[in-house]
């Protein structure tokens, strides 16, 4: 039954995707993109990927929309009509689609328990995690220990994007159209959103912390928590104006969070090296290897959360600051 839902949602996904591409108004495209992301997350959830769905929710519904809107506010809102060049694109794309669909018919079908992916590496994770790491959420175990090096790479991808955006938007605008010095007021004179939003901000941050520290037991972890907390602070910035949010958490603190988080993660790895293990081998952190693993996971998840939260907020502020400067 549930797969019928999935079929249904997937068909909607295609319709929305076509509509996104067709829409001439970029704002409409962004709005539809957020529906696309919601649909995608629901599908992930139906396909048993609770952690991924939470991530898509935290990123797609909040952060992506906000960043897109800030970019739109700085550029144009409508797309111009274009002529020509479509046929070649359509042909190329059609060939690609038929190639992939050609490949599907020898793939294992959805949910097939005999598919090779369910035979090789994954059963080992499911079987050995209780013995080696002993936390219920296998996704967190794989993410932060077995494939912890990937996650370190992921943190550094976010870090690169953060300093990249700061670097690119840190350049002085070519033509300052007379500094108006108007502080963005936020939604201060909208009473209802103001009151409700203020009420909500602490809950969002609290929920973020819950996701952070509950990641070993339920869906969640550092990245989701970082994104959720960042969304909470962005809400505050929307309500009180960007300057107020910067007064609460200045840029230097954000940069400190990013750098600190990245170094915390890497530092744990280096400490493991000094204590005689391989890089990121948390077992050596404690006399009992299982405790060592759990300790390591808690610390690195904290690092991931700090880095992601700081990076997303820095990116948001970089865009918002540009808006004032214009």
């Amino acid at each position, binding site marked *: 039954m549930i797969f019928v839902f999935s079929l249904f949602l997937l068909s909607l996904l295609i319709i929305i995707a076509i509509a996104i591409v067709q829409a001439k108004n970029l704002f409409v495209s962004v709005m539809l993109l957020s529906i696309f992301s919601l649909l995608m997350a629901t599908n992930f959830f139906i396909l048993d990927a609770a952690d991924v769905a939470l991530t898509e929710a935290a990123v797609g519904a909040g952060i992506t929309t906000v960043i897109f809107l800030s970019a739109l506010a700085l550029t144009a809102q409508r797309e111009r009509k274009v002529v020509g060049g479509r046929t070649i694109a359509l042909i190329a794309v059609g060939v690609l689609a038929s190639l992939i669909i050609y490949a599907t018919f020898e793939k294992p079908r959805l949910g097939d328990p005999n598919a090779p992916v369910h035979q090789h590496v994954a059963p080992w994770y499911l079987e050995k995690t209780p013995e080696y790491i002993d936390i219920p959420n296998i996704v967190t175990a794989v993410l932060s220990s077995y494939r912890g090096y990937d996650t370190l790479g992921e943190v550094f991808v976010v870090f690169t994007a953060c300093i990249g955006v700061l670097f690119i938007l840190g350049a002085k605008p070519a033509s300052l159209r007379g500094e108006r010095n108007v502080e963005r007021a936020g939604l201060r004179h*909208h009473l209802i959103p103001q009151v409700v*939003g203020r009420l909500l901000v602490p809950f969002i941050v609290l929920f973020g912390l819950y996701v952070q520290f509950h990641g070993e037991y339920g869906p969640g972890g550092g990245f989701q928590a970082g994104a959720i907390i960042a969304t909470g602070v962005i809400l505050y910035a929307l309500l009180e104006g960007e300057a107020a949010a910067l007064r609460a958490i200045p840029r230097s603190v954000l940069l400190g969070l990013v750098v600190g988080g990245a170094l915390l993660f890497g530092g744990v790895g280096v400490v493991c090296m000094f204590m005689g293990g391989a890089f990121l081998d948390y077992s050596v952190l404690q006399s009992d290897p299982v405790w060592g693993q759990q300790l390591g996971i808690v610390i690195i998840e904290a690092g991931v959360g700090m880095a992601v939260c700081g990076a997303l907020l820095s990116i948001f502020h970089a865009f918002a600051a540009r808006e004032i400067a214009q």
Partner: protein
Amino acid sequence: MIDLAVDALSWVLLALGGICVLIGGVGALRFPTFYTRTHAASLTDTMATLLVFSGLMLQAGFTLATLKLLAIMLFLLLTGPTATYALANAALESGLKPEAPTIPGRTRKKADS
């Protein structure tokens, strides 16, 4: 006996919630102007949230899940109307006039499609 009653009550609540959701959806699609559509969507949303989540809570019994359901319900009850208010306000500020068209769908202003 009590169990059965609770179960039945929860099913009734869920069914009512489902109907409410549907009505809201139809309203949001069929009503003639933006403000009337807002009206349909927002009111039924609130009601449906209440009904569905009460039904689910009865199913869950006294567990952590109930607490979470309660939290979700409260948040939805708070944010739903706020979001609708914000939206209607934005529309009004940017010049979309609320008016009652004589012929549905004809005279409404195309603000910015």
